[in-house]
């Protein structure tokens, strides 16, 4: 299959998932509910007392991680629960399915981030002097989380206890990017420049390349198994 054919099929999977999500808003509601609730609870419990920047950075990625855990698996579990996965398996190239689902998760998590990031700065009084650099770290973080969890979502989609299994399987492979993301965000919030956080950013890019390559190579076996 040529790359244009693959792209158009991946786009068809993405467009279908976006249309289904628009009509049900199931994943978006879940992800936003979790993100906004967590931020609001932390904000009210802190009151006037501020948190150290290191903890603020960790708090942000905890919210993003658990929001991702709450919603990103649905991209495959919804297909299994609705009985539509069989039709998809019979008709679609596995790479097109993986790429379509990956881009759907990227859009979903980006939408969540676009809503909760301003709320995070408002609720926690985190220093917002270096917002562009924070957005860069956030963008890499979203790609890293989605690249890894989309494959895990496919693996657990036919298991009986999907919710628990998704977090359990995702955590070990997300530990490294989460540590890098907390470290980079911490430095950004402290006002450091891009040259000072280059090492974690380079490590994140390497992680994304490795995970994406491994996912594309492995997905067809996971999907057919």
């Amino acid at each position, binding site marked *: *299959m040529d790359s244009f*054919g693959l792209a*158009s*099929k991946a786009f*068809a*999977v993405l467009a*279908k998932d976006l*249309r*289904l999500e628009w*009509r*049900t808003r199931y994943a978006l509601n879940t992800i936003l509910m979790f993100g906004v609730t967590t931020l609001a609870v932390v904000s009210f419990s802190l009151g006037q007392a501020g948190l150290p920047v290191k903890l603020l950075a960790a708090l942000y990625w905890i919210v993003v991680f658990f929001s991702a855990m709450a919603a990103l698996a649905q991209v495959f579990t919804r297909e299994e629960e*609705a*009985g*539509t996965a*069989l*039709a*998809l*398996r*019979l*008709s*679609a*190239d596995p790479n*097109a399915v993986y790429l379509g689902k990956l881009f759907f998760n990227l859009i979903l998590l980006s939408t969540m981030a676009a809503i909760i990031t301003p709320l995070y700065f408002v609720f926690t009084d985190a220093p917002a002097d270096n917002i562009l650099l924070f957005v860069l770290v956030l963008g890499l973080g979203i790609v890293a989380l989605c690249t890894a969890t989309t494959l895990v979502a496919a693996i657990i989609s036919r298991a009986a206890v999907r919710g628990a299994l998704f977090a359990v399987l995702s955590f070990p492979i997300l530990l490294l990017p989460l540590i890098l993301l907390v470290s980079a965000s911490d430095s950004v919030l402290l006002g450091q420049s891009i040259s000072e956080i280059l090492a974690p950013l380079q490590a994140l890019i390497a992680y994304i390349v490795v995970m994406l390559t491994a996912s594309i190579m492995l997905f067809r076996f996971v999907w*057919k198994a």
Partner: protein
Amino acid sequence: MYTLKVENLSKRFGSRRVFSDLSFELTTGRSLSITGRNGSGKTTLLMLLLGLHHATQGKVSYVCDSEQLPDSAVRAGTALVSPYLNLYDQLTGEENLVFFATLSGINLSGKRIDELLATVGLERRGVDPVGAYSSGMKQRLKYAVALLKDPAYLFLDEPTSNLDIDGKLFVRQLVESRRRNSIVVIATNEEEDYSLTDGLIRLGQ
């Protein structure tokens, strides 16, 4: 000329043997019914033929003019209608057709959509969400999806389930017309369906 070649196929679930040492060969224009009591492995055999289950032993080959077909060609040339295969309830009938056509690399025109829907008796219902369809209408839409890629291999699992008398007649006419240019495999317990095919395999004996 397409061929479906099954050699010494066996399937076990743990210690339970579903079937063993099954061999047959079908070429374009030939058709086969698979029957057997509930749980005898009819659907499992279809899934094995479609490569969706792993065989314990044996081999299934899709061949065209003595060349083994690659996965992409098998996907493009096979279609399944089954109670276990669902379409998207939140999409309309037309949106489902366009989606599956795109996945198969087919550019579906509005006229062709209308033709397909008319063929399966769903005229003017293509704009309704599939979730609002009756079970029989959903079954008819599955036939429309199966037909859109003009499959060289057509697999039907309980092909007349949920269908009314007109629907059953439509399925029989469809099998009658398709079997000249395709390989048709039907898993069924309806005795009337056996007469539509050239051969019969009884599982669980």
